[in-house]
Each structure stands twice: as structure tokens, then as C-alpha cells.
């Protein structure tokens, strides 16, 4: 009986956190946010060296071959440091999808490039979970036609894209008949774009299926939930530290019950969520029957807790929390992104009800 992170997970988190503290400070994040959002090579190279980029790539393709839970807990570190890298897409969802549904040749081609950091693969999956408007792509005769919105990583080398039949394909940045339009959005640590395809050639993953898609979405949701967990914990830590130093009425404001209770409420929401996320990750690795249910609940519940913490921690900072000077809004917006991306909480709770036959 041991319910908690493993030694390996804790030591990987420690290494990644140490690296991010030194090499990916808020100043570096701000720099990324004000450029054209092309890959932060310095941070990426560091994560390649730590093995994080190839965490889900099988060992025979040069990766670490670790589990979905191992990958998800790294998301917690990145959320904690609002790190602007294509981790969810390139390191988590793409390798899992390609390993499960790609041909041997495709695995050879993509997985080793992921592991050594030479290729990034963005995600065009929004239409496959909670589609908005008229977006969506259709596959015919080896090519894709349509529009994919809210696609991650405008500068990626490839994208993993789901068509209207829940089949997965890889398209190359630079493929003919492909138009890329950046979609400026609130969280400048994870840029989005829209892809317009008209008979655009693609590399279809032959073994893809609705089941594979559902599994990789479960992994994505769980990883996003861990990202929010890290961001929320960081916001609470910053709020407590700020309150311990800020004086008003000749006292540190951390000695006022009104402020203490806000911090206690944040902790009281974060800690049980952490345990829910641990179980969601465990269920994924065990391929347990309730993995999908817990992935839905993990992302939806963490989104609600994250929203509460984002607001409350900002309020504890008073006017400074609202400024760009402190940069607290990077965490606030990161949590906001994680809430909506690949399905918001209302939609996910409906998926949780469906998973229990409580809704059609």
C-alpha cells in the first residue's frame, strides 16, 4: 500500500524544477511571450538533456519509455513555472498516439526525432472532443480538407490531427495547400493557430481508432490537470509569501483572518485535488476501467479549483496582483487556458456522466 508519487517521479520533478528555476525564470517567460512564439530552444534543449522530451518515447526509439503518470507529473512542474514549451503536444500526446497507432516506419520516423528534440508535433484535436462552430476536417484519398481551430504550436514541425471519423493523421508544416493563421489568445505561454487545409497531403496513422483517440485524450486531460495543479500551487505559495511581507495597519496582512482564511481555502481545495489527480494518473497506467471517468473528473474538477485559486490568490495580492509588474497573471491565464483547452468543465462532466450511463 503506497499512494503517492514514486521515488523516480519525485526525483524527476526535483531535477526539472531546479532546471526551470535557473533557466526558465519569469523574465525568460516574458521574453517568449513578446516574441513570435517560435520554440524556446534554450529551455527545450535543457528538457531534452533531462530526458523529459522523450519521456513517453519507447526506449528502442531513444526515449525513456516511462508511463503516462510519469509524464503527467512533469506537467505539474511546467505549470508551476508557466513554462512556454510544447510539452503536452510533442512529449505526451503525439508520442503516445504514434506509438499506439503508427506503422513501424512512422514510429521510426517520428519517435526518435521527438526524443532527440529535433522535431516538434502540435495538436489539432479540438474538433475531436468539443468542436466549436463549423470547424472540422475530412479525410479523402490520402489528403485532408477543412479547418482545424485552436491548434497548438504555430511553429511546430508537424501536427497530429484528428478527422471527423476520429482517425489520426500527421501533417507537415510546409505541406502544400496548408494555411496557418495565428490565433492570438490570453495565455501567451501556449500559442494557438488555425489550420486551413484543402486537399492537403497527410501521413495517416493506420491503427488509429476512436479508442486510441479517447485514450490519448484521457492522457491529455490528466496532464493538463497536473499543469493546473502546479500553477495553482505556485499561486498559493506566492500569495502566502506576499501576505507574509506586505504590511498594512502596522501588521503583515498574513495575520488578518480574512487573508488567512482565503489562503486556507485555497489549500483545502488544492490538496484533495492532488489526490484525485494521482489516482487519475494511476488509473491510466493500470488501464483500469475507471480511467476515462477519472480523467474527465480530474480535468473538470482541477479547472474549477484552479479558477478559484487564480482569483483568490490574485485578490490576496491586492492591486499588485492586477499589474503586469508582478506577472502573477501568467499563472492566472495558464489556468484559464487549461480550463478551456480540449474541453471545458461542463462538457467534461457530461462525459463523466456518460461514462457511468447517467447520460446518453
Amino acid at each position: 500500500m503506497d499512494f503517492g508519487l514514486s521515488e523516480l517521479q519525485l526525483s524527476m520533478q526535483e531535477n526539472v524544477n531546479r532546471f526551470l528555476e535557473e533557466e526558465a525564470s519569469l523574465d525568460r517567460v516574458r521574453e517568449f511571450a513578446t516574441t513570435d512564439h517560435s520554440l524556446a530552444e534554450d529551455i527545450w534543449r535543457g528538457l531534452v538533456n533531462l530526458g523529459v522530451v522523450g519521456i513517453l518515447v519507447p526506449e528502442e526509439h531513444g526515449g525513456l519509455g516511462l508511463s503516462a503518470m510519469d509524464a503527467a507529473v512533469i506537467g505539474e512542474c511546467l505549470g508551476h513555472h508557466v513554462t512556454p514549451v510544447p510539452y503536452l503536444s510533442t512529449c505526451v500526446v503525439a508520442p503516445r498516439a504514434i506509438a499506439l497507432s503508427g506503422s513501424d516506419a512512422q514510429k521510426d520516423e517520428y519517435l526518435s526525432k521527438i526524443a532527440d528534440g529535433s522535431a516538434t508535433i502540435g495538436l489539432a484535436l479540438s474538433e475531436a472532443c468539443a468542436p466549436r462552430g463549423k470547424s472540422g476536417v475530412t479525410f479523402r484519398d490520402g489528403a485532408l480538407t477543412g479547418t482545424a481551430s485552436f491548434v497548438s504550436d504555430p511553429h511546430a514541425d508537424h501536427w497530429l490531427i484528428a478527422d471527423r471519423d476520429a482517425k489520426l493523421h500527421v501533417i507537415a508544416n510546409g505541406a502544400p495547400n496548408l494555411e496557418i493563421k495565428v490565433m492570438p489568445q490570453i495565455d501567451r505561454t501556449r500559442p494557438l493557430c488555425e489550420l486551413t487545409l484543402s486537399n492537403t497531403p497527410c501521413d495517416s496513422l493506420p491503427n488509429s481508432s476512436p479508442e486510441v483517440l479517447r485514450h490519448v485524450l484521457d492522457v491529455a486531460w490528466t496532464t493538463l490537470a497536473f499543469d493546473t495543479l502546479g500553477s495553482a500551487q505556485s499561486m498559493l505559495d506566492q500569495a502566502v509569501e506576499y501576505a507574509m511581507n506586505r504590511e498594512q495597519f502596522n501588521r503583515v496582512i498574513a495575520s488578518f483572518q480574512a487573508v488567512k482564511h482565503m489562503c486556507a481555502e485555497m489549500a483545502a481545495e488544492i490538496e484533495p485535488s492532488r489526490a484525485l489527480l494521482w489516482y487519475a494518473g494511476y488509473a491510466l497506467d493500470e488501464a483500469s476501467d475507471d480511467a476515462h471517468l477519472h480523467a474527465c473528473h480530474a480535468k473538470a474538477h482541477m479547472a474549477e479549483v484552479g479558477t478559484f485559486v487564480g482569483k483568490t490568490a490574485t485578490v490576496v495580492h491586492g492591486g499588485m496582483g492586477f499589474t503586469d509588474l508582478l506577472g502573477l497573471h501568467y499563472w492566472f491565464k495558464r489556468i484559464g487556458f487549461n480550463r478551456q483547452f480540449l474541453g471545458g468543465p461542463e462538457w467534461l462532466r457530461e462525459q463523466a456522466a456518460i461514462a457511468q450511463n447517467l447520460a446518453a
Partner: protein
Amino acid sequence: MDLSYGPQYDTYRQELREFIEKHRDQAPRNAPLKSDPLKSWQKLLIENGYAARTIPKEYGGHGGEPDLIKGRIIGEEFAQAQVPSGLGGQGISMLVPTLLELGTEEQKRQFIPPTLAGEMVWCQGYSEPNAGSDLASLRTSATLDGDEWVINGSKIWTSTAHLADWIFCLVRTEPDAPKHQGISFLLFRMDTPGIEIRPLVDMTLAPNFNEVFFTDVRVPKDQIVGKRGEGWYVANAILGHERDSLGDPNATLSRMTRLIELMKEETIGNERIIDNPVYRDRLMKLQARVMSLRFNDLRVLSSRLNNTDARLPRMISKLQGTELRHELEGLAIDAMGETGLMYGASEFLRDGGSWQNQYMYFLGLIIGGGTSQIQKNIISERGLGMPKEPKFEQSTAKAS
């Protein structure tokens, strides 16, 4: 991560299941305190190690080695089989552990065996009308007169006072000492002259509590646990224990399971409540929180097994457990609508009226055992390292 208890515990669980099946007809149902069916059931459970499991044999327990997992399996299996487990109450859950830790050998031999056997029933005399969250400001006094303490004052929220043989009671014995150092922990009989008990009806309309008044109650000098003035520390040795047991996640989970069934049964118009997306969304929101607290509890258990202390997860469980349970019971009432208002003996009730009753009862538990506000003080001060409120130079108490 390893969520199995291990094969030796599978055997243990299996034996327990067989035991429960074999003896379930002997289990007491609604038997009054100290009645024979209750006492013989308790005796059977202790003999087999399913009650008082780790308490030494010489004090009337089973004498087993401490084992958190066995304790948990016992709780799970009796709850699942819906068969009453060993006796509870404040004597067994609070006084016995206190005596084991801080009582004299004579006190242990005198009090623990009859308490465990269900022959001696206790009540707890802590809170007073003017000492609630600020318990250490309690005023009930005890002064020594020869070989006896003479007690004057009153207590409130005293469950089972009208049924109890004995009380364990916090009294002020050192009026000039700082407030935490002036308290002593006394034990005395409830039939001592000078004790008056008045039932206190709560919002559920049941007399779940009492007020207890002491007028020159004379108690032998040696009926004290710990030394004079150490009562606050004696009481605190086990107060955390009570908090842990309020808002039990496994009980909340079984209420959630029943709530889902209820939402399939109840209708509005021609639609089942579960088919209404607004109600369904509220249900799913609560389900995620029920799961979270269950896994939080598992984390606390796991850390105990590994000899580490998951401080924050432990501190938040009373706050969140009671608030969540109150909300869950409230959703059931909303799902029933006007039917949810039905109360008291009535053919219109669902589930024996338990939803409305528990909805109110858990409002009481949000307040009792350390209010939610006190829990937040504890979480922020001991969990997050934030400072206490400064003491006021001048009192801000209301002018009288």
C-alpha cells in the same frame, strides 16, 4: 504507487466476511445502551479482534498488534455488510485512548474494561455557554476542600449526558494561572448530588445534546487524569482524533451512491431528475469532490503506514468532509423538491427522512468539533505557517 493491501490482508478480509455472515443474526438492531444484546455483540467482537483490537487484554481489549490496514478493513466490511460494528461513543473513542496514554495504572484497570464492555457509558464535559471555539477560556471551577474537588458551573453540547454513568470533564482548578495552564481533567459519576441535566433540542428537533449544571458537586481528589493544571494538554492529546472521524469519506461515498439512485427514481414533469442536465451537472461536480476526499483519505492512510505525516491533507479533512456532506444532502432535497420538505413520521418520506435530517445534522457538524473558521485558522497557521492574530491590548468584547 501500489493500492493493494497485500495477500495477507485478502485472507483477513475473507475471514471477517465469513464471520459477519455467520453471526449477522446476533447483531443488535436499535438496542438501547447497556442492553444485553449490545453487550454480548461487543463481547463477541472483542474476542474475535473486531473491536478494541489493539487494546491490551488486561484492560478488556483484544490485545492485537497495531495495524492501520486491519482497522480500515474492519470499518469497510461492517459498513458494506450494513451490520453494526463495535461500540462507539465518547467513552470508547476519546476517553479510552486518553487513559491508555496518560491515565494511572489504577485508572486504566478501573475504567477501561467496563467502558469497552458497554457497561459504563461516558459523556464529555468540554464546551460551555461562554467557551466554544475559545474552549480554553472555560469557567467551570473546581476547588479543593479536604480530599474532594467542589465543582460549580455548567457545560453545553453534552451528548448522552442523560444516559451516561460518568463524565470526563474539563474544569478550572488554577484561576490565577494563564488560561491554558489552569485547567484539569476530572472524572466523576453523573449521579453525584448537585448535577442537573436539561435536554437541548437542536434544529433536527431531536434532543441530541444536553446542558449540564453543577452546583457544589463533590468529587474525590484522585479522580484526575494527569496533574493539576495539565488538563488542556490531556484533552488535546486526543482532540485531533475526533476531528479525523467527522465527515468520513466512505460514508459520504455510500450517500453519493444512494443519491444517484434517488435521482433516477425522482421525476419532474415526465422527466427523471438524472435526465435533467442542470441537476446532473450538480451531481457530477459533487462526485468529483467525493472522489477527491476519498483519495485524500487514502493519502493520509498511506502516509501513516509509511511513517510520514501528510499534514495539510489531514488538516483539511474535517473542513471539507462536513461541508461536502451538507451540500450532498442538500442536492438530494433539491432533487426531491417539495417531497424533500417532508419530515417526521410520514408516509410521504423518502429514505426514512434521512436526507433532510442529515442535511441539518451536518450543518451542526460544520460547527461542532472545531468550526470551519477554526479549521481555517489551523490550516493557515499550522499548515501554511501564517501568523496568529495579534492579541488586543484592550478587550473588544461587547459592552455589558
